């Protein structure tokens, strides 16, 4: 396989800046979206992430990476969706303490590999919180009037755990429930399977897989079985870093 970077991260983007929290919104009981205003905005590519750093009065710091959920839109604002992890030093703080008006240090956007350029056909496969960077891609495609460039498959455990539930459904998206499907769903609950992705493979597109390591490997196996060449698959694995 070849690993070709889609772009480079500009040195200037890596300076820390102090963002202001504009709004806080719950996506699910365990996922919350923070909309931040950036004093030094820089247009991101869908799929890129920011590093967020917390600093204690004694100088102790903790930082974590979070994918941008919003489309690049020139507003100077970004949205980060953060899953609450048990014992997660940063995610628990963000969920329990942070409110509009707070200031948070961030740097980015970062990442040149798991990015969608915005004008090429792509198949997106996300599990759980792995939908976040894919949502940035979907939002960009819809906002630019070219939603047909994308196909998105999202795996969620149950309807209550689906991120962006009001916004995500559409002719270009499919939701797969693994534990509990809603009444009337055309599919019983179960892990993502070849039958879920095969109808969406058009041939020649790039494929973006994002989720836990277990999901990423399962989804990759399914995609290969559906005939996607391995070199077209880009994977972003979310570790248990909290």
């Amino acid at each position: 396989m070849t690993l070709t970077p889609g772009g480079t991260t500009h040195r200037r983007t890596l300076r820390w800046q102090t963002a202001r929290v504009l709004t806080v919104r719950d996506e699910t009981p365990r996922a919350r979206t923070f909309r931040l205003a950036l004093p030094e905005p820089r247009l991101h590519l869908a799929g890129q992430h920011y590093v967020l750093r917390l600093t204690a009065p004694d100088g102790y710091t903790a930082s974590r990476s979070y994918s941008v959920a919003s489309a690049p839109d020139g507003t100077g604002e970004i949205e980060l969706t953060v899953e609450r992890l048990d014992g997660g030093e940063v995610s628990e703080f963000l969920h329990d303490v942070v409110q509009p008006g707070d200031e948070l240090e961030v740097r980015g956007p970062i990442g040149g590999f798991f990015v969608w350029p915005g004008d090429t056909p792509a198949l997106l496969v996300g599990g759980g919180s792995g939908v976040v960077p894919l949502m940035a891609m979907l939002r960009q495609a819809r906002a630019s009037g070219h939603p047909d460039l994308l196909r998105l498959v999202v795996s969620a455990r149950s309807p209550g755990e689906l991120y962006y539930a009001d916004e995500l459904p559409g002719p270009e998206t499919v939701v797969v429930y693994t534990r509990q499907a809603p009444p009337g769903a055309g599919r019983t609950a179960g892990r993502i399977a070849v039958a879920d992705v095969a109808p969406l493979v058009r041939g020649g597109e790039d494929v973006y897989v994002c989720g836990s390591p277990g999901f990423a490997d399962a989804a990759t196996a399914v995609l290969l079985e559906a005939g996607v060449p391995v070199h077209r698959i880009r994977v972003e694995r979310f570790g248990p870093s909290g």
Partner: protein
Amino acid sequence: MAGITRGFLGRRGERDPRLPPGQYDARDQWPVLHAEATPRISTDTWTFTVEGLVEHEVSWTWDEIHALPRARYDGAIHCVTTWSKFDMTFDGVSVDTLLEAARPLPSTTHVMAVSHTGYTTNLPLADVTDGKAWVVWDADGAPLTVEHGGPARLLVPHLYFWKSAKWVSGLRLVDHDEPGFWERNGYHDRGDPWAEQRYQGD
């Protein structure tokens, strides 16, 4: 310097002095991160090659590399995504042993580690010599699993772990520094965790 985050007090209690700045102890977790599909590499066809600025290009098969003198690393590993893991044991062969067989030319200043997947990462020669780097196939006494880079990975534990290329297939010796995969994507060329060299410019 950093502004204080309202309401953030950080971890209670003593901080482990073995933790580099900005890192936390992953304890019994060993997180998995890589950008490509996890490959399946058979040890029947596996090879490791030292090439580039050497007197003799040398390749080893799986059996041949196992016939070399064994070497062990006991200690910590540090990932740029902020986890560290202590008291790990890795078994394999020292990179010194591999370089001795190929005899680097005096003009060599850097190495590019390459993987069976096409992944690359750049390192100064001095960071992979004198007992600082290994090619390993066992972790904590068991064969290295594929998600952790098995059958064999590079191990350069004094640098952030993306330098320890999974599924390593060889070292290319060169006379200049050129960025590898993550380095082209904004990560630091050296990656010293004690200096917090996470991104370019740190």
